[in-house]
C-alpha cells in the first residue's frame, strides 16, 4: 500500500467542530453552582497542590459573590498566565486531585474551569489589573518568551525594572503558542494572553533574536543587571532504530507546531494510519489531534503499562474517547519502507517488567503506518550557552538552579523546562519565572 499522508481528510466544518474548545466557558449559572460547592477550606489542600499557590478558596468565593474581576486579580497575582493554565493544567493531578470534595464525593470542585471563568471575564474587559512600581533604573534580559520567560518579565516589570525579552522564533509565547493542543487554546488565546500580559508596559519583546546566534550570553551579562534563561527544550529524543530517517517519520512536537501555526487546520497533512510512540502528554496530544484531523487509525504504543504513563488517566481516557487505540508493553524495533520508499509499517517487540527492569518477551507484532509520530521526550540544547567568559553548571543535561532559580553564575537565573528537576508543565514554568523575578528583584535592590 502506498503511503497516504495528506490534508483535507475532513471538511473544514468537520475539522472546526472537532477542534472546538475542549471545555467551553462556564455560563454564569454553571459557575455559581460550581463555586457554591467550594467549602472555603482552611489551609486548603488545593492551594498547596497548585505550583503557583493561587488562593483558590478566595478566588472561588469571589466568583460566588459576583466579583469575577476581583477573583481574576487573586488568580493573576499569583499566576499571570492563569488564563492559559486554566486551560492546560492537568488539574486532575494538581489542584483538583486533592480537593476535599474529591475525598467526599469523588467529584472535585472544577477549579480549572472556574479559574477560566474569572480570568476570561477580566481579560474581556481589556484592562491590565496591575500597575508598575516606581522605576528602579535596572535592566534585565530574559531569553525565551515561553511561560517561564514571560512570567519572569511580568513580575520584574511590576517591581519597576525594565525588561528586554530575546526570543528566537517569530512569535512569543513558547509552547503556549506552538505546542499546546489546538482544542485547549482556541481563538488565538496564546497570542491574546501574551498581549494582555505585556500590556503592563516596561517589557520589550525582540523576536527573531536567538541566544548563541544573534546575541551572546557574554554580551547579555555585560549589558544587563541580570539575565533570566527560559529556553525550554530545544531538541527531541530519537528512537535510535532502523528506518527512523524515512519519510513519514516525524517528531510529534514538530507535527503539533505545524498544526498550531496552520492557517487552515483541515489542510494539515496527516497519515491514514498513524502510530504514535510515547506515553506522555505530547504523545496523547499528537494522537488525539491526528484523529481529529481525520486519520482513520491512530494507535499509541507505550513500552510499559497504563499506570506508568506520564499522561494522566484523564488524558488517556480522552484519547480513547476520541478513538485512539492505546497499546501497552511494546517497544518499536524497526520502521519499514513501502514500495514508494516511504514509511509503511513499524514492528514492535513486546515487553514486560522483571524486577523493575523492562525486558523483551520475544514476541513481535507489526502495525501498518504511513505516519510515525515520535513523542519520547525532549532534551535541553546547551549550545547557546557557550560563551568565552560565562559558564553555568548543568545537571542531568539541563541547567542547574537553586530554589530561588539562581544558576551557578551570580548574574544568571533560569527556569521552566530548561532547568533540571522540573515538572515540564506550563504552571511550573510560570512559578519558576515568578520565583526567579522575586530573587532577581531582591538581588538588584538589596531588598
Amino acid at each position: 500500500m502506498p503511503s497516504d499522508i495528506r490534508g483535507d481528510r475532513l471538511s473544514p466544518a468537520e475539522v472546526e467542530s472537532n477542534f472546538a474548545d475542549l471545555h467551553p466557558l462556564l455560563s454564569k449559572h454553571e459557575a455559581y453552582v460550581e463555586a457554591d460547592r467550594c467549602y472555603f477550606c482552611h489551609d486548603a489542600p488545593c492551594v498547596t497542590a497548585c505550583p503557583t499557590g493561587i488562593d483558590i478558596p478566595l478566588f472561588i468565593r469571589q466568583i460566588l459573590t459576583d466579583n469575577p474581576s476581583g477573583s481574576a486579580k487573586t488568580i493573576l497575582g499569583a499566576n499571570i498566565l492563569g488564563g492559559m493554565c486554566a486551560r492546560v493544567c492537568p488539574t486532575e493531578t494538581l489542584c483538583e486531585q486533592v480537593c476535599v470534595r474529591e475525598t467526599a464525593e469523588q467529584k472535585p470542585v472544577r477549579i480549572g474551569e472556574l479559574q477560566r471563568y474569572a480570568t476570561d471575564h477580566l481579560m474581556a474587559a481589556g484592562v491590565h489589573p496591575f500597575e508598575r512600581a516606581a522605576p528602579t533604573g535596572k535592566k534585565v534580559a530574559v531569553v525565551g518568551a515561553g511561560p517561564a520567560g514571560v512570567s519572569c518579565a511580568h513580575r520584574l516589570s511590576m517591581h519597576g525594572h525594565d525588561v528586554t525579552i530575546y526570543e528566537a522564533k517569530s512569535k512569543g509565547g513558547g509552547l503556549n503558542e506552538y505546542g499546546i493542543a489546538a482544542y485547549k487554546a482556541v481563538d488565538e488565546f496564546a497570542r491574546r494572553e501574551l498581549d494582555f500580559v505585556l500590556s503592563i508596559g516596561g517589557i520589550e519583546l525582540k523576536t527573531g533574536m536567538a541566544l548563541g546566534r544573534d546575541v551572546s550570553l557574554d554580551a547579555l551579562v555585560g549589558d544587563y543587571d541580570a539575565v533570566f534563561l527560559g529556553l525550554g527544550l530545544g531538541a527531541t529524543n530519537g528512537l535510535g532504530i532502523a528506518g527512523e530517517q524515512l519519510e513519514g517519520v516525524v517528531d510529534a512536537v514538530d507535527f503539533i507546531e505545524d498544526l498550531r501555526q496552520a492557517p487552515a487546520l483541515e489542510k494539515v497533512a496527516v497519515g491514514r494510519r498513524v502510530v504514535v510512540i510515547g506515553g506522555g502528554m505530547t504523545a496523547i496530544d499528537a494522537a488525539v489531534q491526528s484523529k481529529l484531523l481525520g486519520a482513520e487509525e491512530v494507535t499509541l504504543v507505550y513500552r510499559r503499562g497504563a499506570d506508568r504513563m506520564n499522561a494522566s488517566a484523564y488524558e488517556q481516557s480522552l484519547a480513547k474517547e476520541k478513538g485512539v487505540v492505546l497499546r501497552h508493553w511494546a517497544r518499536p524495533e524497526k520502521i519499514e519502507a513501502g514500495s514508494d520508499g516511504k514509511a509503511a509499517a513499524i514492528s514492535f517487540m513486546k515487553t514486560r517488567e522483571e524486577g523493575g527492569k523492562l525486558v523483551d518477551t520475544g514476541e513481535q507484532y507489526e502495525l501498518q503506518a504511513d505516519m510515525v509520530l515520535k513523542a519520547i521526550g525532549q532534551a535541553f540544547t546547551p549550545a547557546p550557552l557557550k560563551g568565552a567568559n560565562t559558564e553555568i553548571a548543568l545537571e542531568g543535561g539541563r541547567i542547574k538552579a537553586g530554589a530561588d532559580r539562581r544558576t551557578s553564575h551570580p548574574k544568571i537565573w533560569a527556569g521552566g523546562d530548561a532547568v533540571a528537576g522540573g515538572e515540564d508543565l506550563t504552571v511550573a514554568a510560570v512559578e519558576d519565572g515568578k520565583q526567579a523575578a522575586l530573587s532577581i528583584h531582591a538581588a538588584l535592590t538589596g531588598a
Partner: protein
Amino acid sequence: MANLQTNFLGIKSPNPFWLASAPPTDREVNVTRAFKAGWGGVVWKTLGEDPHIVNVNGPRYGAVHSNDRRLIGLNNIELITDRPLEVNLREIKAVKKAWPDRAIVVSLMVPCEEQAWKKILPLVEETGADGIELNFGCPHGMSERGMGAAVGQVPEYVEMVARWCKQNTRMPVIVKLTPNITDVRQPARAAKNGGADAVSLINTINSVMGVDLDIMAPSPHIDGKGTHGGYCGPAVKPIALSMVSEIARDPETKDLPISAIGGITTWRDAAEFMAMGAGTVQVCTAAMTYGFKIVEEMKSGLSDWMDEKGYTSVDQFVGRAVPNVTDWQYLNLNYVVKARIDQESCIKCGRCHIVCEDTSHQAIWAEKDGQRHFEVNDAECVGCNLCVSVCPVEDCITMEHLTDGVDQRTGQKINPDYGNWTTHPNNPMRVAAE
C-alpha cells in the same frame, strides 16, 4: 482602588468591617488574629461584673443547614464573657496599644443600677478603647437576670442606662438593640433621647432550632433539656435590614448613626446595609463559619464594586437607598409588569407553572404544540414575582415593565403617571388630588 476608611463617631478604622461582640472577640489571641487578617475593628465580647458568669458545659450552638451542609442559620445559648473582668481589661489595653489604627469598642452589660455602670466605665476608659456598646440584646440567660433583652424591650430603661453612661464617660456610646420587640423604632428613639451617639443592631432573635424526635426535646439539648437561644447568620439578614431601614428613615432617628449587624456574609450584604444607612457593619456568624480570612473577600468585593460605581469613599453611598424606602400606600399602583420567560435559558422544570397554577393566577402555560413549553399568559399574569422567585435559573424569568398599550388582564390602558392608594377611587379615605 477605593478608600474603605470609615469614621464612625470619630472612631476611625481602615475599613467598615468590624467583628461583632461574640466568641471571635472574646480574647486577645482571637482579636490579634483578626487584626492580622485585616478586620477594621472589633466590638469586644460583652464584659460583665465579677464574679464572672458561668457557661453551660454542653452544646451551646445549633444550626440550620441546607442539604449540602451549608450553614444558613446559627443559634446559641452562650452568655457574656465567662472570663474575669480584670483579664479582659488587661487584654483590651494591650491590643489597643499594639493596633492603634483599628477600632476597639467594648461591649458592656451590668445590672440596671447606676452604681454598677459608674463602677465599670472608668475601668474601660482606662484601657484606651475607642467606645462602648451597651448590650441590651441578649435574649437568653442574661435576660432572665434582668439584663440584656429584658432592658432592650423597655424603652424607658434603654433611655435611662444610655443617659447614665453618657454622664459617666467621655467615650462614644453605642446602644445595641434587640430584634425581639414589635417596633424597633421605640428603643432606638429612647437611645437617642438618652444621649446615645449611635445604635447597633440586630442582636440575636429568639429561636428554637429544632426538635430531636427520638428524645422529644429541643435540639441542641443538654442532659435531655433544651432552651430557646439567639438566632443569627444569613437567615436573619432580611429582618435586620428591615429594622435598620426603619430607624434610618424614622424622622426622629434618621440622623442617628447605625452600625449594622445581622447575617452579613459577603461584600454585597455589607454594601446593602450601608446603602440602607449603616456607617459600619459588624460580622459574627460568617467569621464563625469560615474563619477570619472571609474579610479578604469582603474588602476586595466592596472596593471593586466602589471602583466600578465610581465611589471613592464609603460616605458617598452610605444611606443612598434610604429615600427609596416608603410605606405601602405610596407605591405606584399604575406600575404594571408581566413575567417574561427566556426560552433560551429555560430548562423546562415546570416549577414556575405549577406554583402559578396551584397557588396564584394560572398565568403560565405548560404546553405548546404538544411539547413541554412554559410561557406567560399576559391576560392572567398579575406580575407577582412568584415564578421569578422559584425559577432555579438566574435571570431566566424577568419582569417586563409595560409603559404603554393595554394591560390585557384588566383591559385598562396603561397609565404612565404615578398614582397611589392615597388618591385611589376605591379608597374610602382618599384625599382629593389637587
